[in-house]
């Protein structure tokens, strides 16, 4: 009940409307004030379907951030979309498309074993055209490629270093597992460089893509299983850290709030979950961070993802990156890259997403560095797609600064 009741806080000031990156570029989305606190007064569970335009909310949560009175606009919208799903607003084709995009774990499980074939299909222009025509997956949207090795396979073969500082649970998320294991490797190395023993318990998709697509029941299932898997560590006071800002936000508050999962176990897990940069910056504040960084001579844009700003913890990645000698970081103040999880992959929303991200793409191109930096995977893909500049996770630079071998795009740089 908490989420909907925040509608009473709205004083109609329009700050959310002026800041909403989606409403700024399309008339299809009337804006956060309209969809959130205003429409909520007309919604009622047992009446016919009323909503359409709320599906154009990207869920970036900029509105929540700027709201001076604390209306949970993005959550009200997410719940409204879930009602649309429940009331059958979407045809089977859209539901199928949304579920394909939102079930990143399932997609990984199916796609990974046949990675070369899957990649060939997913990157093939004809295949993509067919996917757009039949399913509505935007043909130009930046779909990732499956990696050859799963992250957890690497981890099992990995020799842990000495760990005097105790244990940390790492929540790697689907993207690290199936597409970008290098981010996970960087995270493990950074944690180990700080003397932590990294534990990786069995885990599932955090459920956020499903929550953003109104598929609440499936998301609830994933969240429950993650909580079951993580709660023992939380009880022991072991921190749970993640490199995907969306996954950690989901464990921290999105899933509990949207699904009314206010049980003791969910609360415990939420309390012990941190974004990795947040965790490391806390170490630094206590004077416990290993700051023996080697210099990286590079100028690059850092974009804090919307989902990271929603953590309300400042800009921990930016502060960490600024500890690295030689690194010249240009902070992006762009509202959003546009992709918003699965949003920009949808044919009807692709153009909107590209327009939303345009100021950020312009900044990245104008800055002219060899890379851009961003904490969230889909944002990185979108930044690269929109600006042509490859993007990395802050942990990759930290690992490099700790002296580990560069991977991926960083390999190609003369640093």
């Amino acid at each position, binding site marked *: 009940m908490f989420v909907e009741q925040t509608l*009473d806080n709205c004083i109609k000031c329009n700050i959310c409307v002026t800041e909403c990156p989606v409403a700024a570029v399309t008339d299809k989305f009337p804006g956060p004030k309209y969809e959130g606190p205003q429409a909520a007064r007309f919604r009622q569970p047992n009446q016919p379907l009323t909503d359409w335009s709320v599906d154009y909310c990207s869920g970036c949560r900029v509105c929540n951030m700027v709201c001076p009175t604390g209306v949970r606009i993005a959550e009200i919208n997410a719940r409204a979309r879930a009602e649309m799903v429940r009331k059958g607003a979407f045809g089977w084709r859209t539901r199928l498309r949304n579920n394909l995009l939102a079930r990143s774990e399932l997609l990984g499980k199916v796609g990974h074993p046949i990675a070369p074939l899957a990649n060939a299909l997913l990157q093939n222009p004809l295949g993509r055209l067919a996917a757009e025509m039949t399913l509505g997956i935007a043909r130009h949207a930046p779909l990732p490629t499956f990696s050859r090795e799963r992250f957890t396979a690497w981890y099992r073969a990995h020799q842990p270093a000495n760990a005097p500082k105790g244990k940390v649970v790492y929540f790697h998320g689907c993207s690290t597992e199936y597409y970008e294991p290098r981010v996970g490797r960087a995270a493990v190395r950074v944690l180990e460089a700080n003397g932590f023993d990294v534990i990786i318990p069995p885990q599932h998709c955090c459920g956020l893509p499903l929550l953003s697509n109104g598929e609440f029941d499936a998301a609830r299932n994933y969240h429950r299983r993650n909580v079951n898997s993580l709660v023992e560590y939380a009880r022991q006071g072991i921190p749970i850290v993640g490199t995907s800002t969306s996954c950690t936000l989901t464990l921290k508050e999105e899933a509990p709030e949207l699904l009314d999962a206010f049980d003791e176990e969910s609360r415990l897990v939420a309390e012990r979950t941190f974004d990795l940069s947040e965790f490391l910056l806390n170490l630094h504040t206590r004077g416990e961070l290993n700051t023996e960084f080697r210099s990286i001579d590079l100028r690059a844009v850092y974009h804090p993802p919307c989902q990271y700003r929603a953590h309300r913890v400042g800009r921990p990645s930016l502060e960490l990156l600024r500890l690295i000698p030689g690194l010249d970081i240009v902070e992006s103040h762009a509202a959003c890259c546009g992709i918003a999880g699965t949003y920009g992959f949808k044919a009807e929303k692709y153009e909107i997403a590209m327009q939303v991200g345009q100021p950020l793409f312009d900044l990245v191109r104008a800055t002219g560095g060899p890379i851009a930096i961003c904490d969230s995977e889909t944002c990185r893909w979108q930044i690269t797609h929109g600006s042509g500049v490859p993007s990395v996770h802050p942990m990759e630079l930290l690992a490099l600064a700790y002296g580990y071998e560069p991977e991926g795009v960083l390999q190609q740089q003369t640093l």
Partner: protein
Amino acid sequence: MRTIQTEVLVIGGGATGAGIIRDLAMRGFDAILVEKRDLTHGTTGRYHGLLHSGGRYAVKDPKAAVECIEENRILRRIMPHCLEDTGGFFVVTPWDDPDFGDTFMEGCRNAGIPVEEISVAQMLREEPLLNPKISRCFRVPDAAADSFLATRLNAESARAYGARIWTYHEVRDLMMDGQRVIGAVCYDLVHDEEVRIYADMVVNAAGAWAGKIAAMAGLDVTITPGKGVMVAINHRVLNTVVNRCKMPSDGDIIVPIHTVAVIGTTDVKVSDPEHFAIEPWEVELMLDEGEKLVPGVKEMRILRAWAGVRPLYQETKAVDTRDITRAYTLLDHETRDGVSGIITMTGGKWTTYRQMAQVTVDRVCEKFGVQRECRTHLEPLPGAEQHGGYHWLGARFADVERRQAYGDLICECELATREDVERAILEGDAKAIDDIRRMVRLGMGPCQGGFCTFRAVGLLHRLRQPDVEEANAALRDFLQERWKGLLPILWGQQLRQERLDEFIYLSVLNVDHLPGPKATRLAPVMYDPPTGEAPQGRV
């Protein structure tokens, strides 16, 4: 000065008057209705919006209960689009006598009101915010009614049958010829002129003002205006009408109507239907009692408070107004007072307005010596057929979504589009912004006119092209009207809202110092503090 001749003159543009003029017109009378402000400006536009099942009177006033359920069935048939079929609960809270439940069931059965007891678990499934300590729950066919729309549609139907309806026509005097009323001297507030209407018969349907009208013919009609204070919660905490299962008393009902839930009401005798204040204890009492039904309601955002005056009539001197019968009264002044040419219909409640009209027009027929059958219970109000079914909360939002009209909202809170407001001004012939409000719910949402008043005045100015001074005064009139209902509940979130509205109007737009009069003749007059009287009621 204009002079007009008609068969029947109806005084009062509330539910009763509008019902009467429709019935008269349908039975072929040449009739005029005069109302001193806009339609529903009086009690009709200031009640909580309940369509009674009769449950409320089942024990205390069986006659009223029977009338209610009869009319409930008829109104569901002729004006479903003015009603929301919320259903109603009567609940036994820990503060109520648990045995009253059985008495209540019996009362309902005797009055012919369909009633069923449901489990508390079922009640909480349907209304999760209700107090879980409630011990019994009875379901009855209560509903929520849009009295603005219903009254306007009665008027529209009457016009289609040839009646004339003149708003902003104040009755200043009744014209007499010996012991016979022959018409009324009216004053047209818009055109600033006197209008003399000669009529073969005058029907006094002025509600709480009926005593004042009757006095103009030297008639002694004692109406006790019973003030009822209501408080609106910012959103629909409930989707079912919920009544306390006990003898009717203060603060024992919550009605979900449009986007709000209304807690009602108090009942305090006032000396003047026009001058009364909303007292702090009344608002507090509503919230205390509301809290018993929906725990936590006191912490929620309160949108507004307002008061209406019940027209309670009793031949003998009144003491406690709640004990006066709610059943209506027709006074035939020819037999009662020896004054012919006038009858008075008073008392009653919104739910029974149509029956009251029927009884009145039956008497008019008798007086004219004609026999014409009433058909108001058979013929639906305009729009009922096209609309096809009851109103529902999300209908307006669904419509805006379907037409993608969200870029064209004038009142964002209540989703009134530019088209709606323009139609209200042109076709609805709105004279003041408050008239637009009654037609399209402009300014009735959380910001209480903060973001729509200047837009509406802009449209009014563009379409009507009044002097700038007049437009400025219209703006001030409406802001002042909204302010009166905000003053009694000015704390928490609504205070924050008002601070922003204050910045918009007093700082940015400098509304207090714009050229033009402070207020117009058309300004609403309610809640002006009683002149020279000590505050009434408990403190």
